[in-house]
């Protein structure tokens, strides 16, 4: 029996130019295609592709390594490289438990999304029994909140409160002295902004206006948080609350959905505007606009139905132009500052990983581990991740765009930015003081930007029709 002891090394095999792995055994030309190369996250981390934000999640190596592994996994899935995908999935399963630290929980959510994606692609056949089991494991229980629960849930973090505070201040200023106010509330949190606004209006020196509130009830898009009551019931509760503040209020629900650019809502409003001319109308968009399909989602059927060349069809453009034609007194646009519209899943993965680490990081400061609310909170983020990664076409609704892009759209549709007053800034800061120190606000020209540890989170902008 022979024994080879270690001796001087042969020259290191050259690395492939894309850094995707080490080239194996060039000497043996007969078996090049057979050998696998293992992706080297450590190497790739040094090549600038991961943004700096992920590094703040405790440990430079860990966060960027997780991201690179996820990217490689996504690539393996997309290219049907079953062996590599399986290996990386196995590694990720072990290093990212769903109950670990922020990094691990974030990675675990992405892992689940990738598995969901893999199970849809052609080369994977989720066996029915295993699929059912996997679904049970992966299934994100979408909690249905009661109004009270939802209100206290929203109040936990500035994520939504920031936009509310800025918008409410701007609205209050815009309707000074007006006897009737019509607000179209396009928000994802079921009118949770409105009670505070009612209070503001109730305390006007000139007395409250008559408040007309129009709200779409979504017919197709079902993103968390979900409410456990009908909008009719919600509406009557709001009206009662308003009454208790001596504010006369009318509540109207119109079934409408962002996936057709709120077509029925716009039409109803148009008709109603004919009747009540001179009424100030305010459109309050709180993270709802990004559910309107962008240019990358074009259904041929939809294009044919609208009698347009699908390349020209942009529901976002259509909606904003329609809005402009309604001559609103003010449009507030609040949304998450990230770009999830890349057509390739790897691009979206990077974008989502480098943005959605924020809620996982922030939650440590306001919800204890194991609490029910924390579970709801994280499952909401999981839902977003799964939607961005595993869904395609009209099912993929989380199509975030950055503030710059939305501003471009607004200007193209005929609006100009008016920004916020100092009072508004003061209100927002006051609100932020109630939350953890990591939250901050910065002003970008006229706009407000919510930040977490200096990273952009949510932007708030205010617009009026340009002449």
């Amino acid at each position, binding site marked *: 029996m022979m024994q080879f002891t270690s001796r001087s090394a042969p020259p290191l095999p050259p690395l492939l130019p894309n850094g995707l792995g080490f080239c194996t055994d060039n000497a043996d030309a007969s078996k090049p295609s057979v050998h696998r190369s293992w992706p080297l996250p450590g190497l790739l981390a040094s090549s600038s592709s991961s943004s700096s934000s992920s590094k703040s999640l405790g440990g430079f190596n860990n966060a960027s390594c997780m991201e690179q592994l996820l990217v490689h996994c996504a690539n393996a899935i997309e290219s049907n490289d079953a062996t590599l995908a399986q290996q*990386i999935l*196995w590694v990720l399963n072990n290093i990212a438990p769903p109950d670990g630290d922020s990094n691990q929980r974030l990675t675990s959510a992405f892992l689940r999304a990738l598995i969901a994606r893999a199970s849809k*692609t052609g080369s994977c056949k*989720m066996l029915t029994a*295993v699929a059912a*089991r996997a679904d049970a494991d992966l299934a994100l229980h979408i909690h249905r909140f009661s109004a009270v629960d939802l209100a206290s849930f929203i109040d936990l973090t500035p994520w939504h409160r920031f936009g509310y505070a800025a918008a409410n201040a701007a609205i209050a200023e815009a309707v000074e002295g007006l006897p009737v106010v019509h607000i179209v509330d396009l928000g994802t949190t079921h009118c949770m902004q409105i009670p505070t606004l009612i209070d503001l209006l109730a305390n006007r020196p000139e007395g409250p206006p008559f408040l007309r509130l129009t709200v779409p009830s979504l017919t197709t898009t079902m993103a968390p948080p979900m409410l456990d009551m009908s909008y009719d019931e919600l509406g009557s509760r709001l009206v009662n609350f308003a009454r208790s503040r001596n504010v006369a209020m009318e509540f109207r629900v119109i079934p409408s959905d962002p996936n057709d650019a709120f077509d029925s809502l716009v039409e109803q409003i148009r008709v109603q505007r004919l009747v009540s001319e001179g009424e100030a109308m305010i459109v309050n968009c709180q993270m709802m606009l990004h559910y309107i399909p962008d240019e990358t989602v074009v259904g041929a059927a939809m294009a044919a139905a609208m009698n347009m060349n699908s390349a020209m069809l942009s529901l976002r453009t259509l909606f904003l132009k329609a809005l402009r034609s309604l001559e609103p007194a003010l449009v507030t646009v609040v949304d998450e500052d990230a770009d999830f519209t890349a057509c390739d899943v790897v691009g979206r993965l990077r974008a989502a990983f480098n943005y959605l680490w924020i809620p996982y990081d922030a939650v440590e400061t306001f919800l204890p581990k194991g609490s029910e609310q924390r579970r709801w909170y994280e499952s909401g983020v999981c839902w977003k991740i799964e939607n961005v990664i595993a869904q395609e076409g009209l099912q993929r609704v989380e199509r975030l765009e950055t503030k710059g892009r939305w501003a471009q759209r607004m200007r193209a549709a005929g609006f100009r930015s008016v920004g916020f007053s100092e009072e508004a800034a003061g209100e927002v800061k006051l609100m932020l003081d109630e939350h953890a120190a990591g939250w901050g606000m910065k002003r970008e020209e006229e706009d407000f930007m919510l930040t977490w540890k200096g990273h952009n989170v949510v932007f708030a902008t205010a617009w009026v029709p340009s002449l």
Partner: protein
Amino acid sequence: MKRDHQDIGGGRGGYPAVTGADNNHRNSFGVPATVAIAEPSAVTTASSLLSSGVYDFRPIPPPIPASGSRGVYGADLPSEMIESPREPKRMRTCSSSSSSSPGGIASGVMGLSTENASSAKSAAGLPVVVVDTQETGIRLVHALLACAEAVQQENFKAADALVKQISMLAAAQGGPMRKVAGYFAEAIARRIYRRCPRPGSDRAALDSPALDDLLHVHFYESCPYLKFAHFTANQAILEAFASCRRVHVIDFGLRQGMQWPALLQALALRPGGPPSFRLTGIGPPQADHSDALQQVGWKLAVLAKNIGIEFHFRGFVAASLADLEPRMLLELESGNKGDRGDDGEEAVAVNSVMELHRLLARPGAVEKVLGTVRALRPRIVTVVEEEANHNGRTFLERFTEALHYYSSMFDSLESGEAETAEGETASAAEEQQQHRAMAEAYLGRQICNVVACEGTERTERHETLGQWRWRMARAGFEPVHLGSNAYKQASMLLALYAGGEGFRVEEADGCLTLGWHTRPLIATSAWRVTAAAAATAAVTAAVTTR
């Protein structure tokens, strides 16, 4: 006329029980009752060959086109068949009644000789017989088993005749059954003519470990068995190494080291930071004296460096694991005492993927190796073995078991390909086919070894999980349950990428098996030394290092 095959073969009851309802298998072994009994007049018994005329088979009727050509299969049946002294009366009877035979298939007896065929043909405008694949499959199996029994009884003349018959039947068959039959037929032929391939012969080039490694890699790529082996073993090793700062894996069959990148990556990113990792890889001598082990070791070292885990490698070339001495591997550890610092004792994992069964070819070898493993005081021993008993007492037992096992194997390889994605390119599909062809060659070599070789050359001595459990217990090991985590992961990964819907992961008393439909084909188990055995080993070690 249905033989009860339950007594043949070990493990799970050897030859499968006859179940007409067993429609899942593409090449069904089960003989539907109807076939065995029907049309006795058309059946040519092989009573001249067998003690109890049980393996009924009928030669396939060549389709007879109007032009009167001999038929698809060309060659006549061997003359022994026709001239067998006990047969002619029966055959003549059959041929003369061919024109008025009750069923279409019965007319097939004409294929026995050209004269018969042409005479029968001219007698009546006989229709072209459509060959029923399922039925020819059954006949093929019967022929194979008849052949094996002939070999067992050393009736090599009859066996040889049957081999030729098998080839004809196989040619009529399609799909995996044809290939399996082909390999088995070739193996029997080798056995008959004493042409068991052995290393060092003039066929050395084809039998080289390098070729074996190449085929092994294709086998790895084309089907889930080895991947399953690696995931499940790695899971046990990863969990056993939790919170250990120094770890040592001894791989009994390093080959291309494909098991280790995933484990290295998981260790590198585990919470608490990576351990320092040492790998000892064992491999067979290379014909061209190249240092294959060291090459693999260096590739893994480069990977380890890039993912940030401290890595050491040592290769051992050994013709047999029994050549390893405990002291050699133990010395390894104590030799590095100086480098240890205060990271604590090294945690050892011994990993054997389809290596232990080879030791059964030499008496005492497996006991020696398990003793060596005990002496290393491992935290975990992972064992993956083929789930079959191909080491039965008699040749016929082994043959029958192997036929069943490899039929399932080949079936599963084939199905994986049938389900390729719509989106897959032509070249990807081609690559899959290449993998499969090489994987089949890899399995073919095993078949050859099981069937054609004996003694120390017969190294593919697979035994069942139950048998290994007994061996391990006797050698002082107790099972470590693989856990529900491992099971869920394996199921999930299989579900995503198994390629065929027939794969099944099952849990059996803490061990995991992967199989095709109802048949487990590979089993992973994990072990540790019992406290009692550890105490004994410690005493022995203390004595020997003095």
